[in-house]
């Protein structure tokens, strides 16, 4: 993990020797001011974002896979990301319908974050209301997926009526990006994520008994409704805040739990949760390092990298081990 962080910080469009990275902290005077600036205000924030995004999405994915007992579940099955996308789409694409004043007053990054959080949480709210009425966990999954397609449909309608500029702006957000976060934004991201992680600690035990199915879990004294509620809230906090600041990042949440389960060969959440969080962080750091295209001017969209490099790895692992759980 430390190596991955170091690798991530050392790579970028400007090449900075590793020695000077250490010196930024140990002996700031000896390092070029521009390099110090790049490291402290760009690369380190980006590394922290990568760690939080990677672990947050992976943990959410694991929670959803256990709760829905479905290997295809990920952090986005509840429609949270579609909700966030819809929020952003309304803001960016819908400015011709509404007024552009929100953008101007509080700044682009913050208004995007606000819009996507609002979108994510309103979808979550709808799903939670449905969840309270339904006993069947599978129905919640389907309702989440339905909200997802509803939002996508609305986004398509919005996209159809917007200008090329607006579309491009929206597309850039949907590519996902780990950079460009200020320290204040990182504080918010970290704070909310830690709240989410903290909640997860309390559901480790019920999650383990859910591995035997809801009926067994209930017979062992697990309050299914409460566990479900905590899981949904933790997931949406994590996914919501991450999507808000870095866009809908695909694949990590679905794949990392599988990779970790295959590597560690366990289902026990006490082991699995920290393992998934760390693997998620490392994988995200590596993907981001690749996205930088070391020593070149270009930065690829992070979404393309996560899928491009992650999917073959999962396919390869599955074919080799032949089981999926």
């Amino acid at each position: 993990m430390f190596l991955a962080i170091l690798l991530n910080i050392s790579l970028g469009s400007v090449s900075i020797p590793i020695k000077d990275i250490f010196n930024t902290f140990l002996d700031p005077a000896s390092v070029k001011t521009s390099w110090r600036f790049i490291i402290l205000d760009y690369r380190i924030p980006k590394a922290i974002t990568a760690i939080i995004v990677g672990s947050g999405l992976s943990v959410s994915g694991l929670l959803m896979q256990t709760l829905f007992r479905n290997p295809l579940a990920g952090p986005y099955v509840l429609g949270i990301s579609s909700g966030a996308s819809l929020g952003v789409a309304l803001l960016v694409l819908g400015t011709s319908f509404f007024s552009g004043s929100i953008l101007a007053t509080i700044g682009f990054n913050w208004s995007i974050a606000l819009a996507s959080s609002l979108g994510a949480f309103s979808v979550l709210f709808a799903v939670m209301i449905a969840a309270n009425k339904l006993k069947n966990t599978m129905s919640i999954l389907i309702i989440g997926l339905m909200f997802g397609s509803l939002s996508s449909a609305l986004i398509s309608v919005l996209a159809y009526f917007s200008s090329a500029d607006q579309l491009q702006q929206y597309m850039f957000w949907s590519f996902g990006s780990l950079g460009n976060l200020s320290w204040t934004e990182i504080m918010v991201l970290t704070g909310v994520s830690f709240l989410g992680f903290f909640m997860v600690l309390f559901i480790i035990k019920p999650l383990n008994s859910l591995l035997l199915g809801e009926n067994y879990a209930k017979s062992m004294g697990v309050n299914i409704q409460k566990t479900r509620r905590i899981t949904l809230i933790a997931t949406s906090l994590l996914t919501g805040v991450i999507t808000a600041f870095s866009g809908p990042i695909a694949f990590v949440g679905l794949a990392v739990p599988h990779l970790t389960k295959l590597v560690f060969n366990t289902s026990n959440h006490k082991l699995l949760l920290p393992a998934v969080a760390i693997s998620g962080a490392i994988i995200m750091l590596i993907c981001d390092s690749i996205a930088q295209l070391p020593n070149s001017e270009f930065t690829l969209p992070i979404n393309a990298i996560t899928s491009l490099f992650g999917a073959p790895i999962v396919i390869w692992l599955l074919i080799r081990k032949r089981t999926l759980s």
Partner: protein
Amino acid sequence: MTSAKKNIVDLQHVSIGYQSRKKHTIIASDINVQLHKGTLVCLLGKNGIGKSTLLRSITNVQPVLSGEIYIKGTSIRKFSPAAFSKTISLVLTERLPESNLTVYEIVALGRQPYTNWIGTVTEADKNFIDKALNETNTHHLSDQKINELSDGQLQKVMIARAIAQDTELIILDEPTAHLDIHHKIETFSLLKKLAQEFGKTIIISTHEIQIALQLADELWLMKENSFTAGSTEVLIDNGSLTSLFSSQLITFDKNLKQFIIK
């Protein structure tokens, strides 16, 4: 309510069935039955008669339509989920979701009602787990993953989990449905031993009438419009078993102690 206190299970005027907004569907009504500690009961009846519904009602998964179910003298509606999980454990027929759990981890899950908030297994818990594994002869499987087990082994492991839960009452819904005759008898003998030696009260719903007749202390018979309970000998003698199935096809032979085709 002195009689209720002595009995582990006490059903009084219980009607079971499904309740929806529009109507009640009554499956069986006015069931009155008591169970003493250490009894092995087999619940018999044809498919769809309501055996599972009755078990779901006793385990508080499904509310009763009327009447009251007492466990150790307390109405099941007054149990907290935590207290209930220390009183009743279950073995179900449903398939387990795919997972990488080991046998030991599954049996250890049975200790959940007793472990702390994060599920730390203490030395005392480990003793219970080891005892459960030994009693079911599954100790050698401890490190195996559940997807590597045969149906017979898996069923023993699930019974071990119920034993580890250390409850006075164990309820099993068709525990031998997928097993061959050897494993069926093995499972029933194990349950018989648990009832006799460890004083567990055990309720099993089953279609294994031959085994049930030989091993059960008591039988509960569910028929279209009636519920009969009693010791095996009494029920054989008074002809209750004869009417268990549609009598045009098969009949119960009292001398052979088995059902024969007419």
